[in-house]
């Protein structure tokens, strides 16, 4: 039998001024099961709380209702007070008679009637409350970082420096990501490799970081605190621990033509056994079996093997699967550039001197294919006039993507600037629609490109590029002067937009995190939880979340790291107990609940008898992942799932209490 206490708060005159609190108390006392009803000036004050605690004790209450302010104000206060008297804190319900009654209505009689209704609803609800225990999940204090670009490296270093072990997985042969491909960085013009290489080395040498390059995450299962990860370490054909990175092998490789260097974005060639760039970390080559003569021509060629001093080349190495258990994950898989050959009118792929922004970075870079001298891919001549075209693929819902890629305005300004610095007397033209330069020092940087470095900016898009007598004729518009313009250029650089890394949608599915229609990972809350994914224990960093620049990527890496260190500062992860609960006896295993769950919190559970024979399969809620939203409850056909604290019978009782 319920023993309910009702406490009506005056909130000074805030409630009592409009609601007849005594009447509410009197009505409460009439309800069957209510053994105590009281009104008091300030329930949240110490005396108020003390009387509440005393009555719980005295009357041995099984539940309490506070007719007071919004639960968003003091629900926790009263729950704690109740808990101190040994009452389950979830046996506290609040009837919101301030924000929803006294502050918004004026007629005292009608306001009082409404207050009584709300109080009755909560009495009916609290009668049906079941004890709820908060859930505690043990934590494996080890983190996995997927993607070794600047965001991932930053996250790994911060976590490792916080004393936690990190596994850093990178798909490519070296860490460094996109940033190491860049030349100088806006707006300070620091050399990218000068600031990036030390970080890469630090990550490689850090005692708390275990680095897997040329490796991919194959499978992930589990939940916060307890993710089981399978990592595929692809066969490198080189024994890492023995390799000295001397370079004899790639110098000996006969395949030095016809294989385009991915790192130099097809502007140079590489060998079959190669390091993507001289500062690669680790400095251990990879043998690309898809082009290696040894593998293509039946084992005849072994020039690299012969050249190798420590004999660390092993053609028989196989892919390896490594299993790890981690408590938290950072997904920082980065981005790709859009394929601009879909713009037939721009001739990318047809005209050699129409190149992408990333290709221009490689031409600028001292470690690039031209050792930092800007040369045309077609004839090696230094261009005097370059036209830069912004928003290629970005802001183009027809052929590309509707969003803004954010970094192109700035990198184009940087390109024009560096071009002016490197080629004296040269001229650059920039076609733009809008200039977005909103971070510290960015606007000044763009202005400098125009005012000091003489780049001419034209407001408009380019419609066509074609070749005429060795020049690229760029047909564009300047909408400010209202003119169609034609510029004869030596080279055209397309500021290609960014898209999520290929395969990031697959990874997201594997991780059970949500992603938008482009494949960018979605944050748990766009403003307040920008570092968290929709799944507990999985955090996001870098461009995998959407276009952003280097400082923002670094910040997001650190943010993810600090979230993980915060999580790992305790031994257990605590979750509010108001989560979904399955009635295994009635579950028919249709798994509609699984389909609607946005958190991947529902899995299949096999129930076996003592001999191990499978009796039935039922839905199982993972308390580490469930947020208690209740979507599954509605999806359930057999009424076998419910959310604690919001059970069906409670809600029907609330409705019933309102019957007229």
């Amino acid at each position, binding site marked *: 039998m319920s023993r309910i206490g009702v406490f009506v708060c005056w909130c000074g005159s805030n409630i009592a001024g409009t609601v007849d609190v005594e009447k509410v108390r009197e009505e409460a006392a009439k309800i069957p099961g209510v053994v105590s009803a009281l009104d008091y000036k300030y329930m949240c004050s110490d005396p108020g709380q003390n009387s509440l605690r005393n009555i719980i004790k005295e009357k041995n209450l099984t539940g309490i209702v506070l007719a007071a302010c919004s*639960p968003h104000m003091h629900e926790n206060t009263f729950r704690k007070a109740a808990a101190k008297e040994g009452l389950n804190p979830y046996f506290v319900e609040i009837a919101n008679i301030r924000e929803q009654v006294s502050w918004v209505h004026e007629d005292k009689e009608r306001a009082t009637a409404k207050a009584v209704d709300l109080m009755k609803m909560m009495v009916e609800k609290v009668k049906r409350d079941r004890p709820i225990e908060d859930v505690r999940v043990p934590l494996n204090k080890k983190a996995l970082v997927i993607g070794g670009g600047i965001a991932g490296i930053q996250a790994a270093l911060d976590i490792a420096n916080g004393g936690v072990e990190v596994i850093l997985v990178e798909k490519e042969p070296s860490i460094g990501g996109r940033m190491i491909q860049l030349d100088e960085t806006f707006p300070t013009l620091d050399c990218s490799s000068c600031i990036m290489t030390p970080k890469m080395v630090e990550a490689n040498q850090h005692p708390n970081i275990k680095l897997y390059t040329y490796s991919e995450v194959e499978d992930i299962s589990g939940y916060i605190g307890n993710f089981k990860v399978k990592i595929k370490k692809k066969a490198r054909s080189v024994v890492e621990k023995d390799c000295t990175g001397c370079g004899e092998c790639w110098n000996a490789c006969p395949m030095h033509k016809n294989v385009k260097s991915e790192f130099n974005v097809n502007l140079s060639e590489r060998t079959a056994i190669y390091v993507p760039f001289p500062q690669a970390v680790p400095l251990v080559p990879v043998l690309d079996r898809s082009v290696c003569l040894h593998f293509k021509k039946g084992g005849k060629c072994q020039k690299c093997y012969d050249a190798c001093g420590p004999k660390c080349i092993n053609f028989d190495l196989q892919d390896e699967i490594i299993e790890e258990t981690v408590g938290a994950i950072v997904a920082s898989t980065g981005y790709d550039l859009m394929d601009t050959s879909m713009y037939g009118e721009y001739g990318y792929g047809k005209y050699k001197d129409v190149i992408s922004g990333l290709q221009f970075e490689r031409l600028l870079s001292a470690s690039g294919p031209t050792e930092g001298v800007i040369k045309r891919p077609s004839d090696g001549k230094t261009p005097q006039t370059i036209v830069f075209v912004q928003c290629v693929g970005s802001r183009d819902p027809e052929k590309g993507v509707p969003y803004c890629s954010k970094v192109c305005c700035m990198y184009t300004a940087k390109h024009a600037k560096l071009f002016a610095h490197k080629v004296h007397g040269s001229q650059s033209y920039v076609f733009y629609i809008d200039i977005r330069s909103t971070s510290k020092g960015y606007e000044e940087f763009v202005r400098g490109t125009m005012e000091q470095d003489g780049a001419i900016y034209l407001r408009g898009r380019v419609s066509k590029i074609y070749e005429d007598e060795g020049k690229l004729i760029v047909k564009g518009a300047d909408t400010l002067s209202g003119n169609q313009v034609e510029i004869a250029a030596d080279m055209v650089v397309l500021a290609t937009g960014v898209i999520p890394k290929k395969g990031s949608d697959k990874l997201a599915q594997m991780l059970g995190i949500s992603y938008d229609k482009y494949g960018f990972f979605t944050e748990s809350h766009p403003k307040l939880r920008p570092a968290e994914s929709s799944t507990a224990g999985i955090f996001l960093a870098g461009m995998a979340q959407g276009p952003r620049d280097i400082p923002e990527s670094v910040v997001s890496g650190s943010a993810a790291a600090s979230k993980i260190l915060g999580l790992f500062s305790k031994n257990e992860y605590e979750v509010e107990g108001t989560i979904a609960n399955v009635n295994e006896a009635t579950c028919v295993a249709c798994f509609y609940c699984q389909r609607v769950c946005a958190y991947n919190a529902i899995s299949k559970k096999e129930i076996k008898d003592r001999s191990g024979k499978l009796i039935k399969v039922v839905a199982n809620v993972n308390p580490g992942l469930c947020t208690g*939203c*209740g979507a599954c409850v*509605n999806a359930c056909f057999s009424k076998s799932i419910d959310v604690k604290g919001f059970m069906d019978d409670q809600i029907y009782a609330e409705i019933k209490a309102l*019957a007229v």
Partner: protein
Amino acid sequence: MEDKDVKKEEHKAPKHGGDNSSDPRIIAFVCNWCTYSGADLAGTSRMKYSDNVRVIKLPCTGRIDPLFIVEAFKKGAKGVLVSGCHPGDCHYTSGNYHSRRKYATFRDLLGYLGVDLDRVEFSWVSASEGNKWVSIINEFTDKIKSLPGKSTDIFTKK
């Protein structure tokens, strides 16, 4: 719920806030994160609005079983409002989409049961939209008052 209860209540004299079209009972099912907070904001801003509404709080509109709406009408409500986060803003990622989709299919059934569909309303009220909450409640109350009284009796139609 049990029909017995319903019958019993039908014999009761109409209470205040009761069973007549000039003073209709309106039940609002709202989510905890957006609309409930929006209503709180209306309160802290001391905005005044019609007092016919009674709010039932749920974690998310995705938790709202369409049968709650039927039950509300069975228990004498003259109007039912469902309000949650704006599309794309759901605290639980996609709960409001589920509820919207569910309602889209459930609407016909409500109509079949004889519920005047003008008496059910879906809206989005964010935590910052206290004023929107007020105008929705006022407009919806006015609308319900202007409707003929009998059309929520879901047992009249076979």
